[in-house]
């Protein structure tokens, strides 16, 4: 399909919207209401263009213009500027943007003036200042002068929609992104326009926004109307160090940007990864970052006369040397959290090999793995049937839930252009028709179960055999699930904690049989954010070794970022970010960095290798596991192969055959070979929002927490004023 934009001809796939045609041509058009993953509605009227198309005569030939060889199909221009986001580019269409059309430039400036008519000039105090689409576009496309000599619309400036999201009603430009987001993405119609005309505001009648995915509206609001209340007033956009990295709170591995200021983590916003999280993240990932900057351990501690005292790394190493002097290194248990990176895992494996220790473990993990064709997130979104077996996605892998919702509304994934994801995909529609019949949920109740066409309830408490309910169906519903799987062309089976925790002996074979028989791909949700990656390293108890469950029987132990609340029989070293209950019991406590401050690699639930990058957070002398293990090795008087990131990555290349340096933004799926499994003796209960993640009230947004230095007290402090 040939389209001409500002005189440049380009070849575009059919179905491309006019706005994407403009961007594909390397030109620009301002827009507010269009969003890559939402339906285009033409609400803001900013993306105006002039457009025209050739027309055909009744005999099928084109209406021509010009004489002889110079004759060209005549272009019939629309009599007025059109919204580019809701218009489809068609064969032979001509488009003019503001760069070449006076009419467009004037209409856009006029539209901008109209939008600003009801928008306060809050830029100096607005959290969106410096990252605001309205601000940028007003600068580029507005008149540059104001004709408003009157008082503009006033409305509530601090209207909380929930604990996490605060609305400034007068800043809203009625683009409807937030309303469409809730309807279309998580399928919760809790926001809408109330009143009309100049009085319109956004509100909910449902008593607040549902926790799960509400934070995304703060990202997509093009102005400072919807703000992240946890990060509000913490800093200006240009003061933040923006660090794109990967969230490691659950095994999905969403792309995020960590915004830090003065060494503190102030905000997390979603990044785009078309393959994993598209443009969305869950509320836990966005709002649950308080622990990264609160109450951190910044230096080592050693126990002196029964009490933990601050010390230096050198003294901590000396203390370990002394404490472990009479322990057989092979008796030292090594335990690490499952959100450790591959680099850290391989470092631990190397040290364990060197010491000959058999008590190695990572937690959380499940006792089995699944050998069946693995489904990717995109497979889930584009499947024609999804069966969820014993999983509460809200706790185990929230964004996977959004991909299942995407499947329900037809699995339309916006195409990709050189300028990125399509800005307006005309196949996405408001209030999309959903296909609940494509989703079956077996197991206890969950949020997603409400959207499922087929429900089979087998209660966790009754110790019900969920897989059995599917394989040997006894009820009509169960038979319907099996039929759904057999009839579908691209089915996906998702396995969660309730089946993976206590598998029967035949579990692995049953699953691969099922996959073989039905052609289903299987997505087994790992227990920890990087359990998938770590399971390819030999980090499970070897013959005669003590697993994590039996840690307290170990003669001595090194515990990294795990908090079982107990210690080993003998000398215990804890490596953690905070002074946990376990750390309080330890002999030596070593400060750890959080995953926001790490470089390394994790493997998400699809088997995708994703990079972690280091944010500028203040963590004192904290170290990651790789360097900490090097210190431990020094204390034990051995020389380990891995002494830092580089050597860990070299070893990974040797060990798993992967090159994890310079991973692409969106990660790569690569086979990591054999998995190592072992019984755990423990049950893992997925729990996304751990206690330390619950945000504390933001002192700067709540005046009750203001500490006023009397010397600097101003007369207006504590009195209503400003924009109240």
């Amino acid at each position: 399909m040939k389209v001409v934009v500002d005189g440049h001809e380009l070849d575009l796939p059919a179905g491309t919207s006019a706005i994407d045609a403009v961007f594909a041509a390397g030109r620009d058009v301002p827009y507010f209401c269009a969003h890559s993953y939402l339906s285009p509605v033409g609400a803001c009227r900013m993306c105006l263009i002039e457009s025209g198309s050739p027309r055909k005569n009744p005999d099928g030939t084109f209406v021509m213009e010009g004489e002889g060889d110079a004759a060209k199909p005549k272009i019939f221009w629309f009599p007025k500027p059109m919204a580019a986001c809701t218009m489809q580019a068609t064969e032979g269409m001509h488009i003019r943007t503001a760069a070449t059309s006076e009419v467009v430039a004037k209409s856009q400036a006029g539209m901008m003036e109209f939008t600003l008519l009801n928008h306060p000039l809050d830029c100096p105090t607005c959290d969106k200042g410096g990252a605001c689409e309205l601000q940028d576009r007003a600068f580029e496309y507005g008149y540059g002068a104001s004709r408003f000599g009157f008082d503009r619309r006033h409305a509530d400036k601090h209207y909380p929609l929930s604990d996490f999201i605060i609305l400034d009603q007068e800043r809203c430009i009625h683009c409807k992104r937030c309303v469409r987001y809730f309807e279309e993405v998580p399928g919760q119609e809790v926001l809408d326009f109330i009143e009309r005309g100049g009085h319109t505001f956004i509100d909910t009648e449902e008593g607040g926004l549902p926790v799960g995915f509400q934070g995304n509206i703060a990202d997509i609001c093009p102005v400072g109307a919807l703000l992240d209340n946890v990060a509000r007033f913490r800093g200006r956009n240009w003061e933040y160090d923006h660090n794109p990295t990967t969230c490691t709170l659950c095994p999905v591995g969403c792309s995020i940007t960590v915004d830090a200021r003065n060494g503190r983590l102030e905000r997390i916003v979603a990044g785009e990864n078309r393959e994993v999280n598209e443009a969305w993240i869950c509320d836990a990932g966005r709002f649950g970052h308080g622990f990264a900057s609160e109450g951190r351990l910044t230096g080592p501690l050693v126990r002196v006369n029964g009490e933990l005292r601050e010390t230096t790394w050198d003294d901590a190493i000396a203390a370990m040397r002394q404490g472990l002097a009479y322990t057989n290194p092979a008796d030292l248990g090594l335990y690490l959290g499952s959100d450790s990176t591959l680099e850290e895992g391989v470092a631990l494996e190397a040290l364990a090999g060197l010491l000959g220790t058999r008590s190695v473990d990572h937690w959380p993990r499940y006792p089995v793995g699944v050998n069946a064709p693995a489904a990717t997130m995109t497979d889930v979104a584009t499947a024609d049937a999804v069966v969820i077996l014993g999983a509460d996605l809200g706790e185990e892998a929230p964004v996977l839930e959004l991909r299942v919702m995407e499947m329900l509304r037809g699995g339309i994934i916006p195409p990709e252009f050189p300028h990125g994801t399509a800005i307006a995909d005309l196949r996405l529609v408001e209030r999309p028709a959903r296909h609940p019949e494509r989703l079956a949920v077996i197991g206890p109740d969950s949020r997603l179960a409400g959207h499922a066409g087929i429900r089979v309830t087998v209660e966790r408490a009754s110790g019900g055999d969920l897989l059995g309910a599917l394989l040997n169906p006894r009820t009509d519903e169960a038979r319907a699930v099996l039929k759904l799987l057999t009839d579908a062309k691209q089915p996906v089976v998702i396995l969660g904690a309730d089946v993976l925790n206590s598998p029967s002996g035949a579990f692995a074979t049953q699953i691969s049989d099922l996959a073989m028989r039905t052609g289903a791909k299987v997505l087994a949700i790992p227990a920890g954010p990087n359990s998938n990656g770590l399971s390819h390293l030999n980090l499970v108890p070897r013959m005669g070794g003590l697993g994590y469950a039996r840690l307290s029987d170990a003669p001595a132990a090194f515990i990294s970022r795990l908090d079982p609340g107990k210690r080993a029989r003998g000398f215990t070293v804890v490596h953690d970010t905070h002074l946990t209950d376990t750390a309080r019991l330890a002999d030596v406590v070593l400060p750890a960095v959080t995953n926001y401050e790490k470089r390394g690699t994790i493997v998400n639930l699809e088997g995708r290798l994703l990079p972690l990058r280091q944010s500028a957070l203040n963590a004192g002398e904290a170290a990651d596991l790789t360097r900490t293990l090097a210190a431990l090795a020094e204390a034990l008087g051995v020389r380990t192969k891995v002494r830092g990131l580089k050597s860990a990555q070299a070893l990974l290349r040797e060990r798993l055959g992967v090159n994890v340096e310079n991973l692409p933004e969106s990660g790569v799926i690569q086979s990591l070979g054999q998995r190592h499994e072992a019984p755990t003796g423990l049950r893992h209960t997925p729990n996304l929002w751990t206690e330390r993640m619950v945000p504390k009230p933001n002192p700067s947004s709540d005046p009750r927490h203001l500490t006023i230095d009397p010397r600097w007290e101003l007369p207006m402090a504590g009195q209503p004023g400003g924009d109240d």
Partner: protein
Amino acid sequence: MSYFADKQPLVADIFSRYPASPQGRRSALMPLLREVQNAFGYVSETHAAEIASLCGTTATEVRSVMSFYSTYHTVPTGKYHLQVCSTLMCALAGSDELWDHLVSTLDVQPGEVTGDGRFSVQKVECLGSCGTAPVVQIGDEGYYENVTRAKCDRLIKAMRADIPPPPDNPVPVTVREDGRQMTAKGERVGASIHDLAPLTGSEA
């Protein structure tokens, strides 16, 4: 308290006017709202929630739709709900002054009902009777036209005695086939298609 629980035939009748799909079910929102409002004079939160669940939608959407139309009320209205048109023609003809006079005489503001339960007031957009501005609509019944201050006082007095005169123009207005509108008294209002004369080039 559920309003529709014992009105299954009515509910079924309303739904039968729309396609039997989730989208169709939502379309029944407006007639259901009208039904409740006719019965109570307004739609309470409880009733809005009931309607939301009948239509398979959320209370937020019900409120959104209700607030878009000035004809639905979320708070009780008086026996005489006076809607003053405040759009341009009526404004030019003095509807602002009329409104001020009305609210101060009745001592009532939008959203309130007078102590005796008789009056409530509301500003509305163009009632489509610009030719007879300023216009006041009473409830759903009809229009009082050319409402001067004196006429307003007479109307209020009559309503206080519960003997209001019939509206000058009942709603729905009679519109004849040729597009001619007739008042309740049978008088012709405005033009009909037959009165339109084609423009000639020379006149333009």
